[in-house]
């Protein structure tokens, strides 16, 4: 059962928003889950934007710069890499945590520990 203890069953694939984000409750924590349909990739990050500590990243727009997938916070449009969590907006608000994601049998699982 080690499998289940490290992975949180977040939602079903069809509950996630295509090319957008949803917010997943993990106890006290909030995790933003993104389904990048165009690239057929899934990403998970902390939901809190480090800029003004707003629980907002799941409501941000996703996209890419060169080939780096990213999310833009809806508040002040700071952008963060979905791969590394690094802040891409130059003016540095620090990196965000990213989590592994896997799909099994139509269920989306998020790793409980950041990458």
């Amino acid at each position, binding site marked *: 059962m080690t499998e289940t203890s490290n992975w949180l069953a*977040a*939602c079903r694939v069809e*509950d*996630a*928003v*295509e*090319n*957008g984000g*949803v*917010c*997943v*409750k993990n106890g006290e924590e*909030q995790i933003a*889950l993104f389904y*990048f349909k*165009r*690239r057929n990739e899934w990403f998970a990050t902390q939901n*809190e934007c*480090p*800029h*003004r*500590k*707003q*629980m*907002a990243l799941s*409501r*941000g*727009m*996703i*996209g*890419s*710069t*060169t*080939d780096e*997938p*990213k999310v*833009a916070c*809806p*508040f002040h*449009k700071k*952008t963060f890499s979905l791969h590394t969590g690094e802040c891409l907006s*130059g*003016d*540095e*608000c*620090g990196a965000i945590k990213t989590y592994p994601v896997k799909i099994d049998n139509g269920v989306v699982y998020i790793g409980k520990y950041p990458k």
Partner: protein
Amino acid sequence: MKKAQIIVIGNGMVGYKFCEKLKSKSESFDLIVFGEECRRAYDRVHLSEYFNGKTAEDLSLSTATWYEEQNITLFLSNPIVKIDRDFKMVYAADGLSYAYDYLVFATGSAAFVPTIPGVEKDGVFVYRTIEDLELISEFAKKAKTGAVIGGGLLGLEAAKALIDLGIEQTHIIEFAPRLMPRQIDPAGSEMLKSKLADLGLKIHLNKNTTSIEGEEKIIAMQFSDDTKLEVDMLVISAGIKPRDELAKACGIEVGPRGGILVNEKMQTNDPSVFAIGECALYDGMIYGLIAPGYEMAEVLAANLCEGNKEFTGFDMSTKLKLIGIDVASFGDNFIDEPDCRTIIFENKHKGIYSRINVSNDGQHLLGGILIGDATAYNMLLQTVNNKIVLPENPEELIFGSRSGGDGVEGAGIVSLPDSALICSCEGVSKGDICGAVTNLNCENLDDIKKCTKAGTGCGGCIPMVKDLMVHTFKSQGKYIKNVICEHFNYSRQELFDLIHIHELKSYDEVLNEFGKNDGCEVCKPLVSSLLASLWNEMILKKGNDVAQDSNDRFLANIQKGGSYSVVPRVPGGEITPDKLIIIGEVAKKYNLYTKITGGQRIDMFGAHLNDLPVIWEELIAAGFESGHAYGKGLRTVKSCVGSTWCRFGLHDSVSYAIRIEERYRGIRAPHKFKSAVSGCIRECAEAQSKDFGIIATEKGWNLYVCGNGGSKPQHALLLATDLDSETCIKYIDRFLMFYIRTADPLTRTATWLNKMEGGIDYLRNVVINDSLGMAAQWEQEIENLISSYKCEWKEAVENPAIRKRFSHFVNAPEEKDPTIEFVDMRGQKRVAEWKTV
């Protein structure tokens, strides 16, 4: 071999810049920095922005981890208290001592406080550090009147800050007979005085403060002319005093009026001890500006790395960054006849004063002063510094400054030598900037900032950096068009036509056909807005929801903290008592803060995402519809009460406003647009500040267009007079479609017109005389948009798939975001402050 150890005293702007420069040149030193303040070095130049919402972290010059990454040991809140030069040791406040091979003073300066009896009283402040600003803003909460001693650069900035903090009566006390005595002449001072008075400042010249009255706390200031001024608080900004006390105590030579004496290598009388920045005295002068400080840091860093650079003085030209008023002085600003010829241009009506000092042979510009309009500053400064030969009519330099573009400005850039210093803070030349464009393929300002650092200091050079960039593009034969972003190689207008011709209906289709990669936060909302402007379909369908800004995606504006606002449409501002009651009831039920907006309707704030559908369901049931406060589309059509009640009213402005609002509601455009209808020329609806405004005349309606409130207010211009109601609407139809089809993204009508060649005459020709032959098509297109209008909120609450999206947690749909916090204020709730980082 052990590395040489450098100790820097002071972690201010110049101390930081020194570390950055030294580290970029060499790894062969160990660097230890002692700071007296509790924070990492921050941008003191933009200190006042702290009052406009910037945090200490925003102002910080480096990231939290920078020093560690660079292997620099940084001590904060730990000033050096003693130096032993014989043993080459410094002693810090925490009791520990450290050895140095080289010692650098970057201790800056402190505010100079004159010895006026009573300066120690509560309510008397200086303006130098973030702590000072924190104390001032705390105290200002209980103060009504305030004063600033000192009418110089910093004093004026401090005074503006007091006004921004809500001090209704702010006085400036200046000892000299004029303002900014070091930068501007008496006539300039007069002009500046009247501009400052417009901001609400009271200015007292020739005033010498003799004492500060009050028990513990200041209550009044007493002056030598026996007058008195009652004030609740005082900021002293009377100059600076170099922090040379430590240097003096260990026998380093200082100047008679303060400042650590240095030579052109920044070296003191002890060859292993240096001083840079505002604490250093070079050639009898303390340079109270950032650019010379950075230059000193560069000189010292280069020399420690075996370079050979010298500091040879620095240009003291400055531009005041007081919001709203341009003031600049450059070169030899005070030189007078007969040593030169001065040309002065004064326009009291517009509040513009410009003075240039030209050499007697008419060949060169020596210096000058600009007040009210400093657009020409950068170019004039370059003309002085590079000794550019003046045109036959040098007065064009100041008269022509408004023409912009390729006028004097444009021609000027070309004539600058490659060595011309454009960004003096970072020492970047014209050659560096043009080179970054040609060789490093910089394509926008951000690229140039990254490659060259130009424009990252005080920012004053940015307009010129942009001009140089555009000029270099042009000279390379690059066709510059405003492409949207890296995903679409088209301008907004081109994409508009492409989507139209190919009848594309969703963001993904558009990206597949005409874009590349995955899109981003720039092109997504833009394409969404084009789709909406073209087809007016429900914006959340066809996967378009995730291509919308958060506000459009959730059909509500996101607020601080993550809650949303609810704004139902109240056409023309007319509302029945019953509907008022409904709003009250809904607000009570869902615990919403209510406020009358500036647009004649009611905003309900603080709604949880989960509650939005139910709130709207109740509002819609009571006959309300979306007010589109979130979308780029029609906001409000304000009205005055008009002829139905008002004794001056010529026509029924309320009915006409409602008709207009209902006609254009829901239509998406490059930016939001607003309108108003006034019942007579008294203009109570403020129609002339709107994107289109209508004013009743004896014979019909006058139609005004392209007005704007906001940060750059602009009056609307008269497009047509005495129109009947139908013709007026026809013209608005055409006007709006022309705007929707041709304006750049996020461009209000005022800016759109400002950029239009031919201006209002051209626009009038298009709208009224149909000079483009588009009128019939546009009228048809707008009819289609109008007839396809549906309330988005109605569609959203009725569609289960869309409705499902209005929950915070995907795995706990009933739960609201527990992190949203509200606090109480005047019997309603308000959102808690940003959590500080």
